[in-house]
């Protein structure tokens, strides 16, 4: 064996070892990070901290889920319809190009810029205080491009034979879309929606100037028109992610460190659950459809 050969072999072995080390480093890092977040969060948890009064984070947890739900109600129809348009109706040309550039622009917007825009349109222009709807609007702007793209890809991914079969038995284009294409693309669309929701849970920069950093609600008041009602969408509302930021920026309570730790842990669990859920649901629907 000559020298060059030998050197090449040594380089190959070294690179392999280094790559193995890098890969295990990342897995270790993830285990340590999540372990730290969860351990630190639940180390000294008391029922009071998880509750709905005083310094408990129950209110924020409720707000997070409610805000993301409202934002999905706004963004899912828009995203899915726009995705259908892109996949089935748009023809190559200038308008489609503009639409595609718009989606790219929206998806790369810094979330704080989106937050400022929503602040301008939904808070300042309407002369309201910070409100939940404005926050949901901001999160929607962030998730619309995601849902549109996922829907388009999913519908394009449906085999052409499905379309041909549907047209062949006399269905119109719209019937084909509603009865054939959407059901077969559903697992991927739902996965995309859940991922968008997961991003919504963690969003904070877009919310600090739209839905605000505090909330004052009363859980015995379920009248949606009242300003202290949890269901009112025109009330200020702070989500878990914003709560962490607020505690860091202006936390004065002696246990603000602990509350932030717990909020982070709950937030991470929430996101994990949603990611797991999207996988499980995707698999479940695929199985159901294939039979």
């Amino acid at each position: 064996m000559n020298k060059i050969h030998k050197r090449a072999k040594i380089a190959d072995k070294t690179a392999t070892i280094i790559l193995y080390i890098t890969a295990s480093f990342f897995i270790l890092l993830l285990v340590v990070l999540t372990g730290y977040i969860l351990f630190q969060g639940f180390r000294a948890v008391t029922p009071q901290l998880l509750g709905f009064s005083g310094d408990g984070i129950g209110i924020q947890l409720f707000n997070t889920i409610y805000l993301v739900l409202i934002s999905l109600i706004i963004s899912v129809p828009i995203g899915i319809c726009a995705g259908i348009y892109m996949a089935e109706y748009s023809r190559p040309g200038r308008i489609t190009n503009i639409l595609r550039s718009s989606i790219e622009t929206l998806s790369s917007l810094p979330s704080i810029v989106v937050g400022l825009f929503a602040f301008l349109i939904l808070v300042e222009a309407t002369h309201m205080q910070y409100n939940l709807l404005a926050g949901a609007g901001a999160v929607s702007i962030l998730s619309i491009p995601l849902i549109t793209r996922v829907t388009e890809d999913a519908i394009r991914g449906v085999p052409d034979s499905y379309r041909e079969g549907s047209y062949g038995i006399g269905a119109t284009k719209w019937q084909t879309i509603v009865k054939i294409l959407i059901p077969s693309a559903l697992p991927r669309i739902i996965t995309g929606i859940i991922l968008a929701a997961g991003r919504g849970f963690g969003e904070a920069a877009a919310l600090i100037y739209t839905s605000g950093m505090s909330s004052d609600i009363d859980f015995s008041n379920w009248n949606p028109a009242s300003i202290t009602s949890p269901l009112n969408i025109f009330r200020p509302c702070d989500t878990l992610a914003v709560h962490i930021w607020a505690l860091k920026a202006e936390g004065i309570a002696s246990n603000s460190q602990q509350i932030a730790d717990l909020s982070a842990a709950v937030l991470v669990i929430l996101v994990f659950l949603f990611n797991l859920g999207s996988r499980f649901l995707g698999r479940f629907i695929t199985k159901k459809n294939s039979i």
Partner: protein
Amino acid sequence: MKSTLFKKIKDNEMFKRIKISSLLKKIKNGSPKLLKKTKNEYLGRSVVTVFGFFIIILTLLITGFLIYKGIGTFVVQKHSIFEFLFSNKFAPQDIVGSTQKGQVGAAVFIAGSIIISLFALLIATPFAIAAAIFINEISPRLGKRFLQPAIEIFVGIPSVVYGWIGLSILVPFIANIFKLPYGFNVLSGAIVLSLMIFPTITSISVDAIRNVPIEYKEASYSLGSTRWQMIRRIQIRSALPGILTGVVLGLTRAFGEALAVAMVIGRREQFPKFNNGFLDGLLSATSTLTSKIASDMGNTVTGSEWNNALWSMALLLFIISFLFIILIRFLSRKGSRQKV
């Protein structure tokens, strides 16, 4: 059966040729079912088209409002663009209609954003490419089972949580190692950011490397290359446009990230002190465009010089993210041309 089918196909053909109103009149008397179908057809089409156009309108609205608010500094308060981009004196007035002029130099924040994003890239890119190679070539089995799910979890962790971890572990740790009073500095910010952008770069690099034609790999092996030679000289080189796309996407994310960076950067309005040496630069507190907007916007009065200056920064962020998109388009066109 056959004849009705034929008729339906003929009717479908008619959609294209005959005016919709006359068609509706014709089938109104004939088949109510067909009428409903036709109505649905056009209703559905209109609805999805409207929503498609809504996205364009939304983007134009955002662009329009950002430009409208962002040029206030230059139009209403009559500062020069040169001052905004290159002066490091930021002391604007917070009174609407004030005749006194403050200073709106944003150079510190611009420099802070650029430096911190570049450092984050510098840290994240080698790791990301290594991870992508591992998943594709070294051990696809372990990669798929452990590394890829791990990366997906990294993506899922919210940015505020990254910031919070940075604040409670990294900042004290760095203060400890370098014997500083505080650990809020460029280095902490770059490490936190690199953790956040590394999954983006990795997942796009994985795809880019996977899309390298297998013939290249086979040809390289048959010429007697070792695996590492094949990876280094063939795969990375042919996947380069794709990998660069991932890098630019990571850069876009790093540039736009606000709160996580704001938590660990120290938010001091000064340039990092790179003139005192590299390490001093890394260990000095600074501020970024996003962290300045996040911390100041709530304290300003609409229309004041200060408020307008912050909007100008937002406009600048928007322009930069737009430039990144153009860069990505350019890269992906290059990548697809290479493949042909």
